[in-house]
C-alpha cells in the first residue's frame, strides 16, 4: 500500500463470517481511503451484502474486526455506529412512509444534533427552523424540494431512494454505505443518481458502493474490490480490475 494509516477511514481487518457450515466471508481485508469511493462488486451470493451488514453492525463477524476512524465497530449497535458517522442507504429504501418528505429528512437531523436519545418534548417543531432549512437545502440537492409536503410513501421508487440519500446526507456522515443505489431504476434515474453521487464526492465524503450495474461502478469508483465466494479475488483501480482475467472468469463463472 502506498497510503499511510491516517488516510484509511475504514479498515475491515481479517474478517470471517460463517453461517453454519457456509463460509460467507473469508479473510476479508479491506482498506477504504478518506474521500474515496470504494466499490464492491461480485456475482450474486459473493457476500457483498454480508460484508456491508458486518460494517454497520447488523451482523457480527465470526472473527476479525471492523475499525472506523479509530473506533472498533465490531459488536456495536447500529445506532452507535451511526453516531460515530456511518450512514447507510438500503437496497430497498428504508424510509418513514407515513411522514412527509420534509419530516423524513428532518428526523435524522435530530439524531445528529441531539444524540441517540433526548427528551426534547418541550420544543416545538416549528421553532427548529435551522433544521428545517437544512432539510430543505438537502432536498434541493437531491431534487425533491417540490415534493417536500407529500407523504413519503407515495413517492416513486427512484424518488424514495433519493430521499433516503437525503436522509443520510443531512447527517454529514464521514462514511456513506450504499447498497445498490440504482437497483430497479430507469436509465434516466440512474444517470441522475450518478450525477448526484459525483457531486457528493466533491465534498470529500467517503463512500462504499455495492453495485451490479457496471456503468454505475465505472462512473463513480476510485477503487474496486471484487468479491467471489466470500473472498476478495481482485482489487485496484477500475482499469486494473477491468483488465484482470480472474475478474472476467469470476463473472463468467458466476453467470453460468
Amino acid at each position, binding site marked *: 500500500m502506498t497510503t499511510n494509516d491516517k488516510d484509511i477511514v475504514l479498515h475491515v481487518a481479517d474478517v470471517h463470517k460463517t453461517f453454519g457450515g457456509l463460509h460467507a466471508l473469508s479473510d476479508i481485508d479491506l482498506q477504504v481511503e478518506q474521500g474515496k469511493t470504494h466499490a464492491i462488486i461480485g456475482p450474486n451470493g459473493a457476500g457483498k451484502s454480508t460484508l456491508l451488514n458486518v460494517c454497520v453492525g447488523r451482523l457480527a463477524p465470526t472473527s476479525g474486526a471492523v475499525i472506523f476512524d479509530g473506533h472498533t465497530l465490531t459488536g456495536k449497535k447500529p445506532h452507535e455506529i451511526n453516531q460515530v458517522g456511518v450512514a447507510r442507504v438500503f437496497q430497498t429504501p428504508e424510509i418513514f412512509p407515513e411522514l412527509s418528505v420534509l419530516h423524513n429528512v428532518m428526523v435524522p437531523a435530530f439524531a445528529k444534533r441531539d444524540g441517540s436519545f433526548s427528551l426534547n418534548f418541550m420544543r416545538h*417543531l416549528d421553532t427548529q427552523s435551522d433544521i428545517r432549512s437544512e432539510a430543505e437545502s438537502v432536498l434541493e440537492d437531491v431534487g425533491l424540494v417540490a415534493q417536500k409536503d407529500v407523504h413519503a410513501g407515495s413517492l416513486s421508487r427512484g424518488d424514495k431512494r433519493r430521499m433516503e440519500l437525503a436522509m443520510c446526507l443531512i447527517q454529514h456522515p464521514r462514511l456513506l454505505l450504499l447498497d445498490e443505489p440504482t437497483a430497479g431504476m430507469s436509465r434516466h434515474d440512474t444517470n441522475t443518481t450518478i450525477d448526484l453521487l459525483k457531486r457528493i464526492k466533491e465534498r470529500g465524503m467517503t463512500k462504499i458502493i455495492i453495485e451490479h450495474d457496471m456503468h454505475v461502478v465505472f462512473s463513480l469508483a476510485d477503487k474496486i474490490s471484487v468479491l467471489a465466494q466470500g473472498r476478495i479475488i481482485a482489487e485496484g483501480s477500475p482499469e486494473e480490475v477491468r483488465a484482470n482475467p480472474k475478474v472476467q472468469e469470476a463473472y463468467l463463472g458466476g453467470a453460468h
Partner: protein
Amino acid sequence: MFFMNRRDILVFAGFTILVLTMPIWLTPTGAAYPALMQTFAIYGIMVIGFNILFGLTGYLSFGHAAFLGVGSYTAVWSFKLLTMNAIPALLFAVLLSGVFAVVIGYVSLRRSGIYFSILTLAFAQMCYSLAYSVLTPITNGETSLQLTLQDPRVIDLAFTERGSGLPVPNLFGLPMTGLTGFYFCAVILVLAFFLAQRITNSPFGMTLKGIKSNQNRMDYTGFNTRPYTLAAFVISGMYAGLAGGLLAVTDPLAGAERMQWTASGEIVLMTILGGAGTLFGPVIGAWLVKYAENIFSAFNESVLHNFFSFLPDGMEEPFVWVAALFVGEGWHLTLGLLFMIVVIFLPGGIMEGVRRIGTLFRRRPDTSDGSAVSAKQQPAE
C-alpha cells in the same frame, strides 16, 4: 419554550371550550349529570395517554388498565393514611404508576408487535390477580379498598377533629363532588391534552412517529429506540395512573375489577374507534363508549315504544322487538356493530370520517395530520 403555531392554538382552544362547556351541550343527550361527565373527563385523560404509546409510537398495550388500578389504589391509600386532599393523592398515583410502568415497560419492550401486546396483557393479569387475592391486606381483595372511620389520615387529623361521618376528597377544603368534581377533572383533562399536544408537535414526538413508521431505519439513523419507547410507555402509564387517581378522587374506592383485561381492551377499543394517532379522536372514542355504557344501557322497552310511536299499529311491535336487542343489556351489541362499521369503512376511526367530510367541503387536497403545518405561513415567534 411555549411556542404554539396558529393551528395548535385553535385546536387547544377548541378542545378547552368543548370540555368546559360539556354541561351545556350534553344536556339534550341526557348525559349532563356530574358522575358521567367526570367519567368522560377521566377516560379522556386515560386515552390521551394511551394514544402516546399506541397512536404515536405504534406499541399496542393490552395492559393499561393495570396502571389505572395502581393509580386508584394509591390515591385511596393516600386518603386513608395522609389526607383527603386530592393533590397528594394524584401525585402519588402518578408516581407509583410511573414506577410500575418502568418495570413492566422495561421487560415488555424487549419485544414488539403481538409479543409486546401479550407481555403487557400477562403483566396486567398478574397485577389483577395480585390485587384480587394475593395482596389482600393492601387491596382488600374482592370487597374493594374503601375509606373507614378508623383511617389514620395523619395530616388531616393534625389540624382538625375527626368528624362523625366518612369524609369526602377535597381540594384544600373544596369537596370534589358533583359539578365541582367534574370541573376539577376537566381542568386536568385540558392540561393533559396540552402536554400531549406538546409531545406530538416536538422533535421527541416526531421520533416516536419515526419508531412507529420504521424502527429499523431509526436504528440506522442513530436513534437508540429503546429509551424512547420506554419513555412513551412510562408517560402513558402515568397518564393512566392519573386517570385512576381521579377515579378515586371522584369516588374514593378502588376495586380489582378496574384492572381486568376487559378494562384494558375497552381502552384499546376507545382509541381505535375515535382514531389512533390523532389528538381528538381517542377522546371522542372514550366519550362514545362511556355514553353507550351509561345511557344506551338504560334504554328500555317503554322508551322504545315512545320512540317508535309514530309508526302505524302492528309495525311498532316488531321494530321495538328488534331495537330492544340493541339497547339495555344489549348495548354491547350496538358498540360491537359500531366498532365493526368504523374499522371496516373508516380504518382511521371517527376522525378519519371527520377529515373526509372536511375535504369534501373544502375541495382541496389535505395534507394529513401534523404535516399540514409546514404548508402554511409560519407566525412570527
